[in-house]
């Protein structure tokens, strides 16, 4: 009897133990089925830059350090994150030294060394290579090997946020041996390497069918002998978001589905089938309406939206800009178009928490039609017989453009109705995303040209530091014919104080001070109405209830911890 009891408690303990440690050994959990409704084109993120390619390749090739789901840096191929305290970051902020883990092997069994890290930098910065992640390597003077396992990255000028190169899914380390003859103009020709990079990650490409399906198997040389739990991964691509959601949540054919851009009520119905659940992560994406500071009147022809066109006849008035924001009910926009994947915001830098301001939430987050009307009345904008306000012959009629997307068109309709309540007319327009964001200088419909009074889109920044992002609103970054419409200051915002603030931020090292400055700059943009932030957008993915270990991440690849995923028992 006693023995039986002992046996029973032992069994219970054993079950409890296996329950907490979800997987026991490498490659014991079968096939992991992932569905990306936008198919993956290549496994080399340096040649593509698309989110889907960055995510897919993150299972194979890894950066030195990653962001976890709480935006903290975690070491991957290094022993620790270099900081000022541990001496990894030089006091003068001119260099950062990474200490590589000693026994990491590539999937082909060869050792991973400082040479590979240096080569990765050379690969991406080679002329004529068209490396899509070049911005990650900006401002680097040299990358040198101190010894076999130590890499020193030196910067041209002090870099107060040095975690860009080799950090995050956008800049993984590739193997020198494999890509040695693929540098510069020769890069696209190396199809075999681009489709099947040798990596240090938990999986190895077995077969790659471009824009269709990728088969991966567990990396036998992965540094943790117990991981990954799955023996193989099948990453299927193609189709549309709604049917992808169905394949995970309703039919259960797939374990994980990326980017469920589907109407919230449709998703809720699918989740009710009880086969899977949704995961949301918030990064830095903000859907905003940008207000044009320059005149966009079509009669101005090619001068439209440039300095030569002069200030915008009505949007130059701060009262109008504030009223347009006050009239919007962000809560309704979130409920109608985003559901769990959106939060109301008045910030252009909505996260991480340390740099997210709350200063303008009091007046801006709540819709105030009466207040907006009063503001316009006081500023002298009088309603005409058609219900549209006007002053000195200038009517508050705006051309409102965005990219073609059902959620955006629904939002346009909502905003138009609210603006009508304050006597503002809006003509809605939309252009195909590949044209709107395409940046073709010959096209009149790009968001950079901004041949409209207001336009709506989403933008964000990589990583957790907003310095580079905030520098987009500098006076000299405004798109114009002289720079081939290539600037990023879309609203053509210009404020000498703001420019000074950005310069100060780039010279500030103390994290608390940086956060304070970033908040100040963010508040300036909202208060002065460079744009109207609407929704802090999250990413939604779905996974089967039979899949354990998913830690949805908005700061890095969603598949960042795929090595820890396992079959729920």
């Amino acid at each position, binding site marked *: 009897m006693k023995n039986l009891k002992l046996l029973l408690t032992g069994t219970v303990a054993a079950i409890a133990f296996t329950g907490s440690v979800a997987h026991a050994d490498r490659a014991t959990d079968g096939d992991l089925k992932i*569905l990306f409704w936008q198919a993956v*084109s*290549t496994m*080399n993120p340096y*040649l593509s*830059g698309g*989110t889907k390619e960055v995510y897919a390749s993150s299972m194979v090739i890894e950066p030195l350090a990653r962001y976890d789901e709480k935006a903290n840096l975690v070491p991957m191929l290094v022993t620790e994150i270099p900081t000022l305290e541990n001496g990894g970051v030089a006091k003068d902020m001119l260099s950062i030294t990474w200490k590589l883990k000693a026994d990491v092997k590539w999937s082909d069994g060869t050792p991973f060394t400082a040479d590979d890290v240096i080569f990765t930098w050379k690969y991406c910065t080679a002329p*004529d*290579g*068209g*490396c*899509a*992640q*070049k*911005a990650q390597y900006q401002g680097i003077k040299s990358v040198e090997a101190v010894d076999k396992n130590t890499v020193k990255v030196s910067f041209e000028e002090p870099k107060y946020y040095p975690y860009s190169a080799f950090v995050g899914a956008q800049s993984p380390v590739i193997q020198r041996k494999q890509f040695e003859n693929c540098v510069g103009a020769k*890069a*696209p*020709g190396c*199809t075999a390497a*681009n489709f099947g990079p040798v990596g240090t990650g938990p999986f190895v490409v077995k*077969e790659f*069918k*471009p*824009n*269709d*399906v990728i*088969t991966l198997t567990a990396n036998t040389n992965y540094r943790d002998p117990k991981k990954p739990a799955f023996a193989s991964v*099948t990453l*299927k*691509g*193609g*189709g*549309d978001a709604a*049917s992808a959601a*169905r*394949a995970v949540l*309703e*039919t259960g*054919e*797939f374990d994980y589905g990326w980017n469920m851009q589907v109407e919230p009520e449709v998703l809720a119905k699918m989740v009710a*089938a009880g086969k899977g659940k949704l995961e949301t992560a918030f990064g830095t994406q903000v859907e905003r309406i940008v207000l044009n500071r320059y005149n966009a009147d079509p009669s101005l022809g090619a001068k439209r939206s440039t300095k030569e066109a002069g200030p915008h006849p009505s949007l130059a008035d701060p009262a109008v800009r504030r009223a347009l924001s006050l009239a919007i009910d962000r809560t309704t926009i979130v409920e109608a178009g985003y559901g769990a994947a959106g939060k109301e915001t008045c910030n252009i830098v909505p996260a991480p928490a340390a740099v997210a301001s709350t200063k303008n939430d009091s007046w801006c987050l709540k819709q105030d039609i009466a207040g907006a009307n009063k503001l316009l009345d006081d500023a002298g904008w009088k309603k005409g017989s058609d219900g549209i306000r006007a002053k000195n012959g200038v009517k508050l009629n705006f051309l409102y453009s965005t990219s073609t997307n059902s959620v955006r068109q629904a939002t346009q309709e909502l905003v138009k109705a609210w603006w009508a309540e304050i006597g503002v007319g809006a003509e809605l327009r939309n252009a*195909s*995303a*590949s*044209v709107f*964001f*395409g*940046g*073709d200088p010959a*096209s009149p419909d*790009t968001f*950079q040209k901004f041949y409209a009074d207001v336009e709506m*889109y989403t*933008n964000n*920044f*990589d990583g957790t530091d907003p310095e580079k992002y905030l520098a987009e609103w500098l006076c000299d970054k405004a798109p114009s014919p002289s720079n*081939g419409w*290539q*600037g*990023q200051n879309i609203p053509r915002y210009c404020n000498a104080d703001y420019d000074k603030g950005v310069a100060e931020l780039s010279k500030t090292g103390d994290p608390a001070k940086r956060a304070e400055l970033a908040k100040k700059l963010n508040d300036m943009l909202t208060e002065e109405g460079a744009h109207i932030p609407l929704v802090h957008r999250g990413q939604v993915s779905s996974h089967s209830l039979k899949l354990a270990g998913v830690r949805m991440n908005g700061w890095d690849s969603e598949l960042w911890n795929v090595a820890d995923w396992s079959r729920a028992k």
Partner: protein
Amino acid sequence: MFTYTLRRLLFAIPTLLIISFAIFALLDLAPNDPTGDLPLTIPPEVREQIRASLGLDQPFFLRYLYWLQQFFINEPLNILERLTGWQFGDGSRMRVLSWATRSPVVDLIVQRLPQTLWVVGLAYLFGVMIAIPIGVISAYKQYSVFDQIGTFLAMVGYSVPTFFTGVLMIVIFSSYLQWFPSVYDTNLVVTDFSSFLQQVKQMILPVTVLALFNASQITRFVRASMLDNLHQDYVRTARAKGVKEKAVLLVHVLRNSLIPVVTVIALGVPTIFSGAIITEQIFRVNGLGQLLITAVQGADIPLVQTLTFIFAVLIVLFNLIADVLYGILDPRIRYD
């Protein structure tokens, strides 16, 4: 007949050249951009470098000539090398590279062709096989219950779009009944009976959707053509001579009625290759149709250009085949 065919083939060369130029010019004028789908976090100067690395910084005519050389000289030589094992020159020729995948366009097409031929081709075949008997009976028993039902179904099949029937089938047979998969597995290799069964299972839904659509179109043609012939004098003569009704219908009327139908079917063959864009997308068959639509969306100009041009070649070719077939089948028509 031979000289006629030869003349038509020679005439096709300038036609195709003009088509290729028109496609290239249209694609070049379209305001799409290969960097348009990239995240906005990639700065403009990097985008500019990406465009340059794709060769977009070169003038229009030069790019067109490059494509001509790559498509008409380099790719055929490459195929020849692979088939025969001979080596021409140093073997390192610039091939037509897709911008999205950076891999040779021809390899992509070769990879996609089997799925498309299996699913869309089979659907076409089934469509024809269903359409002919239904059309024949419908015409023979005009205004009967069978004809009414057949006409109704053909109208429904023709007017309800595949993106509706496809999703409906998935909801019923995949989500609710769970009989068939909703996602096509392109990695499935048929080795034994169970994998064959699996292949059949995953093909049923897309093939049914497409076969219905094809059948409803062709049935109408068969029915109309049969009706034309049934009232001809030769039918009355045959019946008067005492020929059996079965022989009248299947030997005399059907053979004559099929002449225009064969033309219609031949003209429809190129659409098999262009794939069924919508159906392939819904069931994730990932054939040529899906390849084309992703290329269009991603502004992958070399891929769109090459695919569209191959379709143009097929259309020109099958037009010729239809004409020649017409001459062979109908003794009244002679081209020489």
